[in-house]
């Protein structure tokens, strides 16, 4: 008896054909489309191939068939394991939702020594008593922090300028560590600061309690100081000095920087990136302005169109890839987060790229006066007089009432991308986010009208660019893959 099965055994697929698995497709350009399955795995095909595939005419012997089968776009008589694998990958992508609120932001003061016209938080310049968080408020907020079931808790100090109320930062850190002795969470701290008023005493405390420093660096001195005025006009000099000193005391990898793109930044992507390289950073987050706070009041937000920002972004991305080709390891962080979603089964902790939205269930904000907001952007909106995303106050509301409030649940439910027009059939949906706060701020609607959404248009342009780069050029693909963070 032959130990081999008859050829007919392996021809069953030819007789029975294949079944489609759920997928979406979106045009990349005039010719190509990107297809994504329910877990976000992608492939690129022309329209004729998609039509052939959907109409069950794709030959089993074709390379396209193998590609689609290996990436779970179809199943056939060989195996049904794709269904189990897709379920596992969907679950992995959404596992952070089950972890619940991990990021807790404390606005320890609204006071600030800078006068940035694009300030999103509408900082105040004096009256310490009125705009600093009290210990009583901090204690109540910390009680809420540990009500979250998340195994990992990150407490982030925001402002204004958080170092202007560093005594409270110290108080909150010590108290959180005390509470954590019985809570046993993976507890981390971060401090957002312009570093203008940093002292050795502050840095040593940050070192001793492993507090990560996040500062602002908008580019070379002339650009940074133009964007970020302060008395003395020396914001850049203070920031650089602070970064260097913080690295000496805390360690090189304990300090990061963020930039904001203003009208003055456009056309200077290379200068800004060169500054980050010169200062020894390993990457940069090329951020657009957000429509909140003083950015609206001073019309900074309207200073440029999204197309202008995309030109700036892609100039920056091109330059960063060029630097990588020359041997420098340097990444663009927004692309890095998206690439992680495209190339791994994991989701992201970045609130703006989450669906369901990360408001409240991934991040939450305790304002200086005890008001609780669904996100930092929600707090910024409140400073403009819009309290839509105010969830309660630590003095008067419980964790349960805050997390089950209509102010939180309604935008979460309504904006879920897999069930809203255009998003539900968009191939980029697995990589994107819901952003109900942005859409409420710009379109007065949690869902938003996606054809006119700046968030949607910006992201789709970036997604198309990254998929095209991954597909068309092996060297660029290798560079982009090296930016992936699992």
């Amino acid at each position: 008896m032959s130990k081999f099965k008859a050829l007919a055994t392996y021809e069953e697929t030819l007789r029975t054909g294949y079944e489609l698995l759920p997928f979406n497709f979106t045009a990349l350009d005039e010719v190509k489309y990107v297809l994504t399955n329910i877990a976000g795995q992608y492939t690129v095909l022309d329209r004729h191939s998609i039509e052939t595939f959907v109409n069950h005419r794709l030959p089993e012997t074709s390379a396209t068939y193998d590609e689609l089968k290996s990436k779970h776009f179809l199943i056939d008589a060989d195996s049904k394991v794709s269904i189990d694998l897709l379920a596992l990958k969907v679950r992995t992508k959404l596992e952070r939702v089950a972890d619940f609120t991990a990021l807790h932001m404390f606005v320890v003061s609204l006071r600030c020594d800078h006068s940035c016209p694009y300030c999103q938080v509408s900082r105040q310049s004096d009256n310490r008593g009125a705009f600093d968080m009290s210990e009583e408020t901090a204690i109540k907020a910390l009680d809420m922090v540990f009500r979250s079931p998340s195994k990992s808790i990150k407490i982030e100090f925001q402002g204004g300028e958080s170092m202007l109320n560093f005594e409270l930062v110290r108080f909150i850190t010590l108290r959180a560590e005390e509470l954590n002795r019985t809570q046993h969470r993976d507890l981390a701290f971060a401090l957002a600061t312009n570093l203008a008023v940093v002292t050795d005493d502050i840095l040593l405390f940050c070192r001793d309690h492993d507090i990560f420093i996040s500062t602002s660096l908008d580019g070379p001195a002339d650009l940074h100081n133009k964007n970020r005025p302060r008395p003395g006009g020396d914001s850049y000099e203070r920031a650089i000095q602070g970064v260097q000193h913080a690295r000496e005391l805390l360690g090189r990898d304990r300090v990061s920087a963020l930039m904001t793109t203003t009208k003055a930044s456009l056309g200077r992507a290379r200068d800004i990136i060169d500054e980050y390289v010169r200062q020894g950073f390993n990457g940069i987050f090329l951020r657009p302005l957000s429509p909140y706070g003083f950015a609206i009041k001073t019309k900074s937000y309207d200073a440029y169109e999204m197309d202008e920002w995309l030109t700036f972004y892609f100039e920056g991305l091109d330059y960063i890839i060029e630097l990588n080709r020359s041997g420098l390891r340097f990444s663009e962080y927004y692309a890095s987060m998206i690439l992680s979603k495209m190339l791994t089964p994991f989701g992201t902790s970045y609130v703006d790229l989450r669906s369901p939205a990360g408001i409240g269930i991934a991040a939450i904000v305790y304002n200086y006066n005890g008001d609780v907001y669904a996100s930092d952007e929600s707090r910024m909106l409140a400073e403009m007089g819009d309290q839509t995303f105010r969830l309660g106050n630590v003095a008067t509301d419980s964790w349960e009432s805050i997390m089950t409030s209509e102010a939180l649940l309604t935008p979460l439910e309504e904006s879920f991308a897999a069930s809203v027009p255009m998003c539900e059939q968009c191939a980029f949906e697995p990589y994107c986010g819901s952003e109900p706060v942005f859409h409420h701020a710009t379109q007065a609607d949690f869902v938003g009208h996606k054809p006119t959404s700046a968030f949607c248009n910006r992201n789709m342009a970036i997604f198309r660019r990254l998929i095209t780069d991954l597909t068309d050029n092996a060297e660029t693909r290798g560079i982009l893959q090296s930016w992936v963070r699992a």
Partner: protein
Amino acid sequence: METRGTSLELSFSQTAFPLETIKKAAYRYSDSLSFEFVVESDKVRLLLHARKPMSAGALVDLAHALRTEVLDQDLRAIVARETQAVRNAILAYAFSGTGLQGDEQV
């Protein structure tokens, strides 16, 4: 396809394309165009109106893109119909054993 100033009319067979397919395709271009739907016995007449001044050539290009989008929506409808059951099975499987239901064994 008939063009009148900043408006243009397309016509779709109702036998070939359900109204919902045409509406979904139109929605995608609602940043540049507004629409009037005229449903007749065997066809849907779709009047496209430019939201902002644009050349006749640009309007024709949008009309071509919209017609391609109608075809794409038709394909998407086939995929959705054929994969609805397995999609629900995948999602049910993904969310099973999470302990979110009160009487569920985790």
